[in-house]
Protein backbone atom coordinates (compact mmCIF):
# COMPACT_ATOMS: atom_id res chain seq x y z
CA UNK A 1 0.00 0.00 0.00
CA UNK A 2 2.57 2.50 1.02
CA UNK A 3 6.16 2.40 2.10
CA UNK A 4 5.03 1.16 5.48
CA UNK A 5 3.81 -2.14 4.19
CA UNK A 6 7.18 -3.07 2.76
CA UNK A 7 8.93 -2.22 5.97
CA UNK A 8 8.00 -5.25 7.96
CA UNK A 9 10.53 -7.98 7.46
CA UNK A 10 9.62 -11.52 8.28
CA UNK A 11 11.53 -13.19 10.98
CA UNK A 12 11.60 -16.91 10.32
CA UNK A 13 13.86 -17.59 13.29
CA UNK A 14 11.19 -16.32 15.61
CA UNK A 15 8.39 -18.27 13.98
CA UNK A 16 7.84 -21.11 16.36
CA UNK A 17 7.17 -24.54 15.05
CA UNK A 18 3.80 -25.88 15.99
CA UNK A 19 4.30 -28.70 18.42
CA UNK A 20 2.55 -31.82 17.21
CA UNK A 21 4.77 -34.55 15.88
CA UNK A 22 7.18 -34.25 18.75
CA UNK A 23 4.51 -34.34 21.45
CA UNK A 24 5.12 -36.88 24.19
CA UNK A 25 3.38 -40.16 23.50
CA UNK A 26 1.71 -40.05 26.90
CA UNK A 27 -0.67 -37.30 25.73
CA UNK A 28 -3.89 -37.99 27.52
CA UNK A 29 -7.29 -37.24 26.09
CA UNK A 30 -7.81 -34.28 28.44
CA UNK A 31 -4.59 -32.76 27.21
CA UNK A 32 -5.43 -33.20 23.57
CA UNK A 33 -8.84 -31.73 24.23
CA UNK A 34 -7.19 -28.71 25.78
CA UNK A 35 -4.89 -28.45 22.80
CA UNK A 36 -7.85 -28.65 20.46
CA UNK A 37 -9.62 -25.89 22.34
CA UNK A 38 -6.43 -23.82 22.23
CA UNK A 39 -6.30 -24.38 18.49
CA UNK A 40 -9.89 -23.26 18.11
CA UNK A 41 -9.32 -20.17 20.21
CA UNK A 42 -6.20 -19.36 18.22
CA UNK A 43 -8.09 -19.51 14.93
CA UNK A 44 -10.98 -17.56 16.40
CA UNK A 45 -8.57 -14.77 17.30
CA UNK A 46 -6.83 -14.90 13.93
CA UNK A 47 -10.15 -15.08 12.07
CA UNK A 48 -10.77 -11.36 11.38
CA UNK A 49 -7.32 -10.90 9.87
CA UNK A 50 -7.50 -14.23 8.06
CA UNK A 51 -10.89 -13.37 6.52
CA UNK A 52 -9.66 -9.96 5.37
CA UNK A 53 -6.57 -11.51 3.79
CA UNK A 54 -8.60 -14.30 2.17
CA UNK A 55 -11.22 -11.96 0.69
CA UNK A 56 -9.10 -8.98 -0.31
CA UNK A 57 -5.72 -10.53 -1.03
CA UNK A 58 -5.86 -14.26 -1.80
CA UNK A 59 -9.10 -14.07 -3.79
CA UNK A 60 -8.06 -11.10 -6.00
CA UNK A 61 -4.59 -12.59 -6.40
CA UNK A 62 -6.02 -15.83 -7.74
CA UNK A 63 -8.59 -13.94 -9.80
CA UNK A 64 -5.87 -11.81 -11.41
CA UNK A 65 -4.09 -14.92 -12.68
CA UNK A 66 -7.41 -16.45 -13.80
CA UNK A 67 -8.54 -13.27 -15.58
CA UNK A 68 -5.28 -12.97 -17.46
CA UNK A 69 -6.30 -15.95 -19.63
CA UNK A 70 -9.68 -14.43 -20.58
CA UNK A 71 -11.21 -11.70 -22.60
CA UNK A 72 -13.04 -10.12 -19.67
CA UNK A 73 -15.69 -7.59 -20.70
CA UNK A 74 -17.32 -5.26 -18.16
CA UNK A 75 -20.68 -6.78 -19.05
CA UNK A 76 -21.29 -10.24 -20.48
CA UNK A 77 -19.49 -13.55 -20.29
CA UNK A 78 -15.71 -13.79 -20.19
CA UNK A 79 -14.24 -15.80 -23.06
CA UNK A 80 -11.03 -17.81 -22.67
CA UNK A 81 -8.26 -16.62 -24.98
CA UNK A 82 -5.30 -18.73 -23.87
CA UNK A 83 -2.07 -16.79 -23.87
CA UNK A 84 -3.29 -14.05 -26.21
CA UNK A 85 -3.25 -11.39 -23.49
CA UNK A 86 0.37 -12.17 -22.66
CA UNK A 87 1.54 -12.16 -26.27
CA UNK A 88 -0.40 -8.93 -26.67
CA UNK A 89 1.31 -7.29 -23.70
CA UNK A 90 4.79 -8.42 -24.68
CA UNK A 91 4.39 -7.33 -28.29
CA UNK A 92 2.91 -3.90 -27.51
CA UNK A 93 5.64 -1.30 -28.11
CA UNK A 94 3.82 1.03 -25.70
CA UNK A 95 4.36 -1.50 -22.90
CA UNK A 96 8.06 -1.71 -23.78
CA UNK A 97 8.26 2.09 -23.66
CA UNK A 98 6.52 2.15 -20.29
CA UNK A 99 8.97 -0.43 -18.87
CA UNK A 100 11.92 1.47 -20.29
CA UNK A 101 10.69 4.79 -18.92
CA UNK A 102 9.93 3.27 -15.48
CA UNK A 103 13.38 1.66 -15.33
CA UNK A 104 15.14 4.93 -16.18
CA UNK A 105 12.99 6.88 -13.71
CA UNK A 106 13.70 4.24 -11.06
CA UNK A 107 17.45 4.28 -11.69
CA UNK A 108 17.72 8.09 -11.64
CA UNK A 109 15.45 8.62 -8.63
CA UNK A 110 16.91 5.69 -6.64
CA UNK A 111 20.58 6.52 -7.20
CA UNK A 112 20.11 10.21 -6.38
CA UNK A 113 17.76 9.46 -3.49
CA UNK A 114 20.01 6.86 -1.86
CA UNK A 115 23.14 9.01 -2.17
CA UNK A 116 21.31 11.99 -0.69
CA UNK A 117 19.79 9.95 2.14
CA UNK A 118 23.25 8.59 2.98
CA UNK A 119 24.64 12.12 3.03
CA UNK A 120 21.79 13.37 5.19
CA UNK A 121 22.16 10.44 7.59
CA UNK A 122 25.87 11.19 8.04
CA UNK A 123 25.07 14.88 8.42
CA UNK A 124 22.40 14.66 11.11
CA UNK A 125 23.53 11.54 13.02
CA UNK A 126 25.76 13.22 15.63
CA UNK A 127 24.16 15.41 18.25
CA UNK A 128 24.07 19.12 17.62
CA UNK A 129 21.89 22.01 18.66
CA UNK A 130 18.52 21.67 16.92
CA UNK A 131 19.12 18.15 15.63
CA UNK A 132 15.65 16.92 16.57
CA UNK A 133 13.94 19.75 14.70
CA UNK A 134 16.19 19.33 11.66
CA UNK A 135 15.48 15.60 11.51
CA UNK A 136 11.73 16.18 11.88
CA UNK A 137 11.70 18.73 9.04
CA UNK A 138 13.73 16.47 6.74
CA UNK A 139 11.32 13.65 7.51
CA UNK A 140 8.02 15.58 7.40
CA UNK A 141 7.46 15.19 3.61
CA UNK A 142 7.46 11.38 4.02
CA UNK A 143 4.16 11.59 5.88
CA UNK A 144 2.44 13.46 3.02
CA UNK A 145 0.75 11.32 0.40
CA UNK A 146 2.18 11.09 -3.12
CA UNK A 147 -0.99 12.58 -4.65
CA UNK A 148 -1.15 15.75 -2.52
CA UNK A 149 2.63 16.03 -2.73
CA UNK A 150 2.44 15.80 -6.53
CA UNK A 151 -0.21 18.53 -6.66
CA UNK A 152 1.85 20.60 -4.24
CA UNK A 153 4.85 20.48 -6.59
CA UNK A 154 2.59 21.12 -9.56
CA UNK A 155 1.43 24.30 -7.87
CA UNK A 156 5.07 25.26 -7.26
CA UNK A 157 6.41 24.34 -10.69
CA UNK A 158 3.66 25.34 -13.12
CA UNK A 159 4.54 28.05 -15.61
CA UNK A 160 1.81 30.51 -14.67
CA UNK A 161 1.70 30.78 -10.90
CA UNK A 162 4.60 28.55 -9.85
CA UNK A 163 7.18 29.91 -7.47
CA UNK A 164 10.04 27.78 -8.83
CA UNK A 165 10.01 29.02 -12.46
CA UNK A 166 9.66 32.52 -11.04
CA UNK A 167 12.66 31.99 -8.80
CA UNK A 168 14.72 30.56 -11.69
CA UNK A 169 13.78 33.56 -13.82
CA UNK A 170 14.70 36.01 -11.08
CA UNK A 171 18.05 34.29 -10.62
CA UNK A 172 18.58 34.42 -14.37
CA UNK A 173 18.76 30.63 -14.69
CA UNK A 174 15.87 30.36 -17.15
CA UNK A 175 13.79 32.82 -19.18
CA UNK A 176 10.55 33.80 -17.48
CA UNK A 177 7.41 31.86 -18.36
CA UNK A 178 9.20 28.61 -19.29
CA UNK A 179 6.78 25.70 -19.06
CA UNK A 180 8.71 22.89 -17.39
CA UNK A 181 5.94 20.42 -18.14
CA UNK A 182 6.23 20.96 -21.91
CA UNK A 183 9.52 19.06 -22.22
CA UNK A 184 9.96 15.39 -21.26
CA UNK A 185 13.36 16.03 -19.62
CA UNK A 186 12.29 18.92 -17.40
CA UNK A 187 9.01 17.16 -16.59
CA UNK A 188 10.94 14.11 -15.43
CA UNK A 189 13.33 16.34 -13.49
CA UNK A 190 10.48 17.95 -11.55
CA UNK A 191 8.95 14.56 -10.71
CA UNK A 192 12.34 13.16 -9.66
CA UNK A 193 13.03 16.14 -7.38
CA UNK A 194 9.57 15.82 -5.86
CA UNK A 195 9.99 12.05 -5.34
CA UNK A 196 13.36 12.55 -3.66
CA UNK A 197 11.94 15.31 -1.46
CA UNK A 198 9.13 13.00 -0.39
CA UNK A 199 11.08 9.76 0.13
CA UNK A 200 14.59 10.62 1.22
CA UNK A 201 13.67 11.23 4.88
CA UNK A 202 12.51 7.65 5.34
CA UNK A 203 15.73 6.20 3.90
CA UNK A 204 17.71 8.64 6.03
CA UNK A 205 15.99 7.49 9.20
CA UNK A 206 16.53 3.80 8.43
CA UNK A 207 20.24 4.48 7.77
CA UNK A 208 20.56 6.46 11.00
CA UNK A 209 19.18 3.57 13.05
CA UNK A 210 21.75 1.36 11.32
CA UNK A 211 24.59 3.78 12.07
CA UNK A 212 23.52 4.17 15.68
CA UNK A 213 24.00 0.47 16.27
CA UNK A 214 27.68 0.52 15.26
CA UNK A 215 29.74 0.21 18.46
CA UNK A 216 31.71 3.42 19.13
CA UNK A 217 34.84 1.39 19.93
CA UNK A 218 35.18 0.66 16.24
CA UNK A 219 35.41 4.36 15.49
CA UNK A 220 37.78 4.95 18.37
CA UNK A 221 40.07 2.22 17.08
CA UNK A 222 39.95 3.70 13.59
CA UNK A 223 40.80 7.11 14.98
CA UNK A 224 43.77 5.66 16.88
CA UNK A 225 44.96 4.08 13.64
CA UNK A 226 44.80 7.52 12.04
CA UNK A 227 42.00 6.72 9.59
CA UNK A 228 40.67 9.70 7.66
CA UNK A 229 36.98 10.53 7.38
CA UNK A 230 36.67 9.01 3.89
CA UNK A 231 38.43 5.80 4.92
CA UNK A 232 36.22 5.57 8.00
CA UNK A 233 33.14 5.95 5.81
CA UNK A 234 34.10 3.41 3.14
CA UNK A 235 35.86 0.89 5.37
CA UNK A 236 33.79 1.03 8.55
CA UNK A 237 30.44 2.78 8.29
CA UNK A 238 29.29 1.44 4.91
CA UNK A 239 30.27 -2.21 5.49
CA UNK A 240 28.60 -2.14 8.90
CA UNK A 241 25.32 -0.74 7.59
CA UNK A 242 25.04 -3.15 4.66
CA UNK A 243 21.77 -4.57 6.04
CA UNK A 244 19.83 -1.31 6.48
CA UNK A 245 21.40 0.00 3.28
CA UNK A 246 20.21 -2.96 1.22
CA UNK A 247 16.79 -2.63 2.83
CA UNK A 248 16.74 1.02 1.80
CA UNK A 249 17.78 0.10 -1.75
CA UNK A 250 15.08 -2.58 -2.03
CA UNK A 251 12.48 -0.23 -0.57
CA UNK A 252 13.42 2.67 -2.82
CA UNK A 253 13.65 0.59 -5.98
CA UNK A 254 10.35 -1.22 -5.46
CA UNK A 255 8.32 1.85 -4.46
CA UNK A 256 9.83 3.92 -7.27
CA UNK A 257 9.16 1.20 -9.82
CA UNK A 258 5.47 1.15 -8.82
CA UNK A 259 5.11 4.93 -9.20
CA UNK A 260 1.70 6.12 -10.29
CA UNK A 261 0.21 8.88 -8.09
CA UNK A 262 2.88 11.49 -8.82
CA UNK A 263 2.60 11.00 -12.58
CA UNK A 264 -1.19 10.95 -12.56
CA UNK A 265 -1.33 14.20 -10.60
CA UNK A 266 1.59 16.04 -12.20
CA UNK A 267 1.97 14.93 -15.81
CA UNK A 268 -1.03 12.77 -16.76
CA UNK A 269 1.54 10.69 -18.59
CA UNK A 270 2.52 13.60 -20.80
CA UNK A 271 3.98 15.38 -22.60
CA UNK A 272 3.08 13.10 -25.53
CA UNK A 273 2.84 9.97 -23.38
CA UNK A 274 6.52 10.26 -22.48
CA UNK A 275 5.97 9.68 -18.75
CA UNK A 276 3.69 6.64 -18.67
CA UNK A 277 4.96 4.23 -15.99
CA UNK A 278 4.18 0.52 -15.85
CA UNK A 279 1.44 1.00 -13.23
CA UNK A 280 0.04 3.90 -15.26
CA UNK A 281 -0.06 1.60 -18.31
CA UNK A 282 -1.85 -0.98 -16.15
CA UNK A 283 -4.34 1.65 -14.97
CA UNK A 284 -5.03 2.78 -18.54
CA UNK A 285 -5.57 -0.77 -19.74
CA UNK A 286 -7.90 -1.67 -16.87
CA UNK A 287 -9.85 1.49 -16.23
CA UNK A 288 -9.59 3.64 -19.35
CA UNK A 289 -9.57 1.05 -22.15
CA UNK A 290 -11.60 -1.29 -19.87
CA UNK A 291 -9.60 -4.22 -21.17
CA UNK A 292 -9.59 -6.14 -17.92
CA UNK A 293 -8.23 -9.50 -19.06
CA UNK A 294 -5.37 -7.76 -20.81
CA UNK A 295 -4.76 -5.60 -17.72
CA UNK A 296 -4.65 -8.73 -15.56
CA UNK A 297 -1.88 -10.08 -17.80
CA UNK A 298 -0.01 -6.79 -17.33
CA UNK A 299 -0.49 -7.19 -13.56
CA UNK A 300 0.98 -10.71 -13.62
CA UNK A 301 3.97 -9.40 -15.58
CA UNK A 302 4.41 -6.62 -12.98
CA UNK A 303 4.33 -9.19 -10.16
CA UNK A 304 6.99 -11.22 -11.99
CA UNK A 305 9.18 -8.13 -12.52
CA UNK A 306 8.96 -7.30 -8.81
CA UNK A 307 9.82 -10.90 -7.92
CA UNK A 308 12.88 -10.71 -10.18
CA UNK A 309 13.99 -7.48 -8.49
CA UNK A 310 13.62 -9.12 -5.05
CA UNK A 311 15.49 -12.26 -6.11
CA UNK A 312 18.26 -10.18 -7.68
CA UNK A 313 18.53 -8.27 -4.42
CA UNK A 314 18.82 -11.49 -2.39
CA UNK A 315 21.42 -12.91 -4.80
CA UNK A 316 23.46 -9.70 -4.62
CA UNK A 317 23.45 -9.82 -0.87
CA UNK A 318 24.38 -13.51 -0.83
CA UNK A 319 27.26 -12.82 -3.19
CA UNK A 320 28.46 -10.05 -0.94
CA UNK A 321 28.25 -12.32 2.09
CA UNK A 322 30.11 -15.13 0.36
CA UNK A 323 33.13 -12.90 -0.03
CA UNK A 324 35.45 -13.15 2.97
Amino acid at each position, binding site marked *: *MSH*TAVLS*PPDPAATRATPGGSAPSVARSGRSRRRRSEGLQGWALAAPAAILIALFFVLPFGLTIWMSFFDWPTFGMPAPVGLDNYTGVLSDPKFGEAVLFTVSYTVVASVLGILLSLGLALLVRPKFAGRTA*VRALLFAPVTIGFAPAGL*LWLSMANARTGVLPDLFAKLGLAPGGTDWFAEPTTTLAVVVVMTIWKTVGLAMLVLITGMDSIPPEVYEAAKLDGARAWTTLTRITLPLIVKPLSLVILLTVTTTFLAFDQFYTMTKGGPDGSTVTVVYYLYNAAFVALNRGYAAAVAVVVVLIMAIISIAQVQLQRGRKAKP
Partner: protein
Amino acid sequence: MTAQTLTPTAAASPRRIRRSRIQAQDRSRNPARIVIAIVLAALFAFPIVWTTVGAFKSATEANASPPVWWPSAFTLENFAKLDSSGSSLLGYVMNSVAVTSMTVVITTVAAVLAGYALARYRFRGQNVFFGVTIGMLLVPYPALLVSLFTVMVWFGLTNSLFGLALIYATFQMPFAIYMMRNSFESVPDELIEAAELDGCSKFTALPRVILPLVAPGVVTVALFAFLAAWNEFLAALVLLNNNPSFTLPIALVNAQNGPLNTIDWGALQAGITVTMLPCVILFILLQRYYVSGLVAGTGK
Protein backbone atom coordinates in the same frame (compact mmCIF):
# COMPACT_ATOMS: atom_id res chain seq x y z
CA MET B 1 12.78 -14.23 -1.32
CA THR B 2 12.69 -10.79 0.10
CA ALA B 3 12.06 -12.63 3.28
CA GLN B 4 15.70 -13.39 3.66
CA THR B 5 16.94 -9.96 2.75
CA LEU B 6 14.88 -8.34 5.39
CA THR B 7 15.69 -10.75 8.16
CA PRO B 8 17.44 -9.03 11.02
CA THR B 9 20.95 -10.26 11.78
CA ALA B 10 20.61 -10.62 15.49
CA ALA B 11 18.30 -9.45 18.17
CA ALA B 12 19.70 -6.34 19.79
CA SER B 13 21.28 -7.38 23.03
CA PRO B 14 20.94 -5.09 26.02
CA ARG B 15 24.67 -4.49 25.82
CA ARG B 16 24.36 -3.28 22.27
CA ILE B 17 21.59 -0.89 23.19
CA ARG B 18 23.69 0.63 25.93
CA ARG B 19 26.57 1.07 23.51
CA SER B 20 24.40 2.76 20.95
CA ARG B 21 23.21 5.13 23.64
CA ILE B 22 26.77 6.05 24.41
CA GLN B 23 27.42 6.61 20.77
CA ALA B 24 24.35 8.72 20.32
CA GLN B 25 26.01 11.06 22.74
CA ASP B 26 28.82 11.97 20.39
CA ARG B 27 28.38 15.60 19.65
CA SER B 28 29.33 17.72 16.72
CA ARG B 29 30.25 21.31 17.33
CA ASN B 30 31.30 21.86 13.74
CA PRO B 31 29.41 25.03 12.75
CA ALA B 32 29.49 24.06 9.06
CA ARG B 33 27.52 20.90 9.82
CA ILE B 34 24.89 22.84 11.74
CA VAL B 35 24.54 25.52 9.05
CA ILE B 36 24.24 22.99 6.22
CA ALA B 37 21.74 20.95 8.22
CA ILE B 38 19.56 23.97 8.95
CA VAL B 39 19.68 25.20 5.34
CA LEU B 40 18.64 21.74 4.08
CA ALA B 41 15.87 21.50 6.65
CA ALA B 42 14.58 24.89 5.53
CA LEU B 43 14.66 23.77 1.87
CA PHE B 44 12.69 20.64 2.77
CA ALA B 45 10.15 22.65 4.73
CA PHE B 46 9.76 25.33 2.04
CA PRO B 47 7.13 23.52 -0.11
CA ILE B 48 5.00 22.86 2.97
CA VAL B 49 5.21 26.46 4.11
CA TRP B 50 4.64 27.85 0.59
CA THR B 51 1.47 25.83 0.12
CA THR B 52 0.12 26.58 3.56
CA VAL B 53 0.65 30.31 3.03
CA GLY B 54 -0.84 30.05 -0.47
CA ALA B 55 -3.99 28.55 1.00
CA PHE B 56 -4.70 31.85 2.76
CA LYS B 57 -4.11 34.10 -0.25
CA SER B 58 -7.01 35.88 -1.91
CA ALA B 59 -8.13 34.42 -5.25
CA THR B 60 -6.42 37.18 -7.21
CA GLU B 61 -3.11 36.77 -5.42
CA ALA B 62 -3.20 32.97 -5.50
CA ASN B 63 -3.71 32.97 -9.27
CA ALA B 64 -1.41 35.91 -10.04
CA SER B 65 1.33 35.46 -12.61
CA PRO B 66 4.16 35.96 -11.68
CA PRO B 67 3.32 34.60 -8.22
CA VAL B 68 2.84 36.76 -5.17
CA TRP B 69 5.36 35.61 -2.55
CA TRP B 70 3.56 36.86 0.54
CA PRO B 71 -0.15 37.65 0.71
CA SER B 72 -1.18 41.22 1.48
CA ALA B 73 -4.01 39.85 3.64
CA PHE B 74 -4.89 36.40 4.93
CA THR B 75 -8.31 35.09 4.00
CA LEU B 76 -10.22 31.84 4.51
CA GLU B 77 -12.20 32.07 1.27
CA ASN B 78 -10.17 29.31 -0.47
CA PHE B 79 -11.28 26.74 2.05
CA ALA B 80 -14.92 27.27 1.13
CA LYS B 81 -14.71 26.68 -2.61
CA LEU B 82 -12.55 23.68 -3.40
CA ASP B 83 -15.36 22.34 -5.46
CA SER B 84 -18.24 24.71 -5.88
CA SER B 85 -20.14 22.25 -8.09
CA GLY B 86 -20.07 19.24 -5.78
CA SER B 87 -19.84 18.88 -2.05
CA SER B 88 -17.75 21.27 -0.03
CA LEU B 89 -14.23 20.68 1.20
CA LEU B 90 -15.77 19.71 4.52
CA GLY B 91 -17.67 16.85 2.88
CA TYR B 92 -14.43 15.39 1.49
CA VAL B 93 -12.71 15.86 4.83
CA MET B 94 -15.53 13.89 6.46
CA ASN B 95 -15.17 11.11 3.86
CA SER B 96 -11.45 10.89 4.52
CA VAL B 97 -12.04 10.94 8.26
CA ALA B 98 -14.60 8.13 7.90
CA VAL B 99 -12.37 5.91 5.74
CA THR B 100 -9.35 6.58 7.92
CA SER B 101 -11.04 5.92 11.25
CA MET B 102 -12.66 2.72 9.95
CA THR B 103 -9.26 1.58 8.64
CA VAL B 104 -7.54 2.36 11.92
CA VAL B 105 -10.16 0.49 13.98
CA ILE B 106 -10.33 -2.56 11.69
CA THR B 107 -6.54 -2.76 11.36
CA THR B 108 -5.89 -2.40 15.06
CA VAL B 109 -8.54 -4.90 16.20
CA ALA B 110 -7.65 -7.52 13.58
CA ALA B 111 -3.90 -7.16 14.14
CA VAL B 112 -4.10 -7.20 17.95
CA LEU B 113 -6.16 -10.40 17.91
CA ALA B 114 -4.08 -12.13 15.23
CA GLY B 115 -0.82 -10.99 16.82
CA TYR B 116 -1.94 -12.36 20.18
CA ALA B 117 -2.94 -15.65 18.59
CA LEU B 118 0.41 -15.99 16.84
CA ALA B 119 2.44 -15.10 19.90
CA ARG B 120 0.53 -16.99 22.60
CA TYR B 121 -1.42 -19.83 21.00
CA ARG B 122 -0.42 -22.97 19.16
CA PHE B 123 -2.78 -23.79 16.34
CA ARG B 124 -2.64 -25.85 13.20
CA GLY B 125 -1.81 -23.77 10.15
CA GLN B 126 -0.36 -20.94 12.15
CA ASN B 127 2.84 -20.90 10.13
CA VAL B 128 0.90 -20.92 6.87
CA PHE B 129 -1.18 -17.99 8.10
CA PHE B 130 1.89 -15.99 9.08
CA GLY B 131 3.68 -16.97 5.86
CA VAL B 132 0.81 -15.79 3.66
CA THR B 133 0.59 -12.54 5.62
CA ILE B 134 4.26 -11.77 5.14
CA GLY B 135 4.13 -13.08 1.57
CA MET B 136 1.70 -10.25 0.77
CA LEU B 137 4.72 -7.97 0.74
CA LEU B 138 5.94 -9.69 -2.41
CA VAL B 139 2.81 -8.81 -4.37
CA PRO B 140 2.59 -5.11 -5.25
CA TYR B 141 -0.96 -4.08 -4.53
CA PRO B 142 -1.48 -1.97 -7.69
CA ALA B 143 -1.21 -5.29 -9.53
CA LEU B 144 -4.30 -6.56 -7.68
CA LEU B 145 -6.51 -3.57 -8.45
CA VAL B 146 -7.95 -4.98 -11.67
CA SER B 147 -9.38 -7.98 -9.89
CA LEU B 148 -10.06 -6.13 -6.62
CA PHE B 149 -12.42 -3.96 -8.62
CA THR B 150 -14.22 -7.08 -9.89
CA VAL B 151 -14.33 -8.54 -6.37
CA MET B 152 -15.80 -5.32 -4.99
CA VAL B 153 -18.50 -5.41 -7.68
CA TRP B 154 -19.37 -8.97 -6.58
CA PHE B 155 -19.62 -7.86 -2.95
CA GLY B 156 -21.55 -4.71 -3.86
CA LEU B 157 -18.82 -2.59 -2.26
CA THR B 158 -17.94 -0.20 -5.08
CA ASN B 159 -18.38 3.43 -4.13
CA SER B 160 -18.38 2.34 -0.53
CA LEU B 161 -16.07 3.98 1.97
CA PHE B 162 -16.42 0.89 4.15
CA GLY B 163 -15.27 -1.32 1.29
CA LEU B 164 -12.27 0.93 0.78
CA ALA B 165 -11.45 0.72 4.50
CA LEU B 166 -11.56 -3.09 4.33
CA ILE B 167 -9.01 -3.05 1.51
CA TYR B 168 -6.76 -0.56 3.31
CA ALA B 169 -6.90 -2.63 6.51
CA THR B 170 -6.06 -5.81 4.58
CA PHE B 171 -2.92 -4.29 3.09
CA GLN B 172 -1.84 -3.04 6.52
CA MET B 173 -1.93 -6.61 7.85
CA PRO B 174 1.69 -7.65 7.13
CA PHE B 175 3.19 -4.75 9.06
CA ALA B 176 0.49 -4.63 11.73
CA ILE B 177 0.45 -8.37 12.51
CA TYR B 178 4.23 -8.57 12.50
CA MET B 179 4.41 -5.60 14.86
CA MET B 180 1.74 -6.93 17.24
CA ARG B 181 3.13 -10.48 17.27
CA ASN B 182 6.54 -9.12 18.31
CA SER B 183 4.96 -6.87 20.94
CA PHE B 184 3.07 -9.77 22.51
CA GLU B 185 6.12 -12.00 22.38
CA SER B 186 8.11 -9.47 24.36
CA VAL B 187 5.64 -9.61 27.26
CA PRO B 188 7.24 -11.91 29.86
CA ASP B 189 5.50 -15.30 30.27
CA GLU B 190 5.49 -14.85 34.07
CA LEU B 191 2.99 -12.00 33.76
CA ILE B 192 0.51 -14.12 31.87
CA GLU B 193 1.01 -17.05 34.23
CA ALA B 194 0.42 -14.74 37.19
CA ALA B 195 -2.76 -13.49 35.56
CA GLU B 196 -3.88 -17.09 35.02
CA LEU B 197 -3.23 -17.86 38.68
CA ASP B 198 -5.39 -14.88 39.55
CA GLY B 199 -8.22 -16.52 37.68
CA CYS B 200 -7.84 -14.99 34.25
CA SER B 201 -7.99 -17.26 31.23
CA LYS B 202 -5.54 -16.70 28.42
CA PHE B 203 -8.31 -14.89 26.66
CA THR B 204 -9.51 -12.63 29.47
CA ALA B 205 -5.92 -11.80 30.32
CA LEU B 206 -5.65 -9.98 26.98
CA PRO B 207 -7.70 -6.85 27.70
CA ARG B 208 -6.99 -6.73 31.43
CA VAL B 209 -3.33 -7.47 31.78
CA ILE B 210 -1.51 -7.61 28.48
CA LEU B 211 -3.08 -4.94 26.30
CA PRO B 212 -1.84 -2.05 28.45
CA LEU B 213 1.69 -3.47 28.12
CA VAL B 214 1.63 -3.50 24.34
CA ALA B 215 0.01 -0.06 24.03
CA PRO B 216 3.06 1.44 22.26
CA GLY B 217 2.81 -1.22 19.57
CA VAL B 218 -0.89 -0.54 19.17
CA VAL B 219 -0.26 3.20 18.75
CA THR B 220 2.39 2.46 16.12
CA VAL B 221 0.04 0.18 14.18
CA ALA B 222 -2.76 2.77 14.38
CA LEU B 223 -0.43 5.58 13.24
CA PHE B 224 0.78 3.66 10.18
CA ALA B 225 -2.81 2.70 9.33
CA PHE B 226 -3.87 6.33 9.64
CA LEU B 227 -1.15 7.62 7.31
CA ALA B 228 -1.77 4.87 4.74
CA ALA B 229 -5.55 5.34 4.65
CA TRP B 230 -5.48 9.13 4.70
CA ASN B 231 -3.03 9.31 1.81
CA GLU B 232 -4.03 6.38 -0.38
CA PHE B 233 -4.83 7.40 -3.92
CA LEU B 234 -4.95 4.64 -6.54
CA ALA B 235 -7.56 2.35 -4.97
CA ALA B 236 -9.77 5.32 -4.09
CA LEU B 237 -9.44 6.60 -7.64
CA VAL B 238 -10.51 3.25 -9.06
CA LEU B 239 -13.23 2.29 -6.58
CA LEU B 240 -14.96 5.60 -5.92
CA ASN B 241 -16.67 7.05 -8.95
CA ASN B 242 -19.31 9.37 -7.71
CA ASN B 243 -18.25 12.74 -6.49
CA PRO B 244 -19.94 12.96 -3.07
CA SER B 245 -18.06 9.88 -1.83
CA PHE B 246 -14.58 11.07 -2.91
CA THR B 247 -11.80 11.12 -0.35
CA LEU B 248 -9.55 14.18 -0.12
CA PRO B 249 -6.77 13.10 -2.52
CA ILE B 250 -9.33 12.25 -5.22
CA ALA B 251 -11.26 15.47 -4.63
CA LEU B 252 -8.03 17.44 -5.09
CA VAL B 253 -7.32 15.86 -8.47
CA ASN B 254 -10.89 16.49 -9.44
CA ALA B 255 -10.64 20.15 -8.47
CA GLN B 256 -7.45 20.37 -10.51
CA ASN B 257 -9.36 19.20 -13.59
CA GLY B 258 -12.08 21.76 -12.98
CA PRO B 259 -14.42 23.16 -15.61
CA LEU B 260 -12.64 24.38 -18.77
CA ASN B 261 -9.47 22.82 -17.38
CA THR B 262 -8.71 25.93 -15.39
CA ILE B 263 -7.14 25.48 -12.00
CA ASP B 264 -8.01 27.63 -9.02
CA TRP B 265 -4.59 27.47 -7.37
CA GLY B 266 -5.77 29.04 -4.12
CA ALA B 267 -8.51 26.45 -3.67
CA LEU B 268 -6.13 23.66 -4.65
CA GLN B 269 -3.56 24.81 -2.12
CA ALA B 270 -6.23 25.03 0.56
CA GLY B 271 -7.17 21.43 -0.21
CA ILE B 272 -3.53 20.29 -0.15
CA THR B 273 -3.01 22.04 3.17
CA VAL B 274 -6.02 20.33 4.72
CA THR B 275 -4.75 17.01 3.37
CA MET B 276 -1.11 17.24 4.41
CA LEU B 277 -1.10 19.12 7.70
CA PRO B 278 -2.88 16.44 9.79
CA CYS B 279 -0.19 13.94 8.73
CA VAL B 280 2.68 16.30 9.49
CA ILE B 281 1.22 17.29 12.86
CA LEU B 282 0.39 13.73 13.83
CA PHE B 283 3.90 12.65 12.91
CA ILE B 284 5.46 15.40 15.01
CA LEU B 285 3.27 14.44 18.00
CA LEU B 286 3.83 10.70 17.65
CA GLN B 287 7.39 10.68 16.26
CA ARG B 288 8.52 8.22 18.91
CA TYR B 289 5.98 5.64 17.75
CA TYR B 290 6.79 6.18 14.10
CA VAL B 291 10.47 5.58 14.72
CA SER B 292 9.80 2.53 16.88
CA GLY B 293 7.66 1.11 14.08
CA LEU B 294 10.49 1.79 11.67
CA VAL B 295 13.01 0.17 13.96
CA ALA B 296 10.78 -2.88 14.40
CA GLY B 297 10.27 -2.97 10.65
CA THR B 298 13.95 -2.85 9.81
CA GLY B 299 14.76 -5.47 12.41
CA LYS B 300 17.23 -3.44 14.42
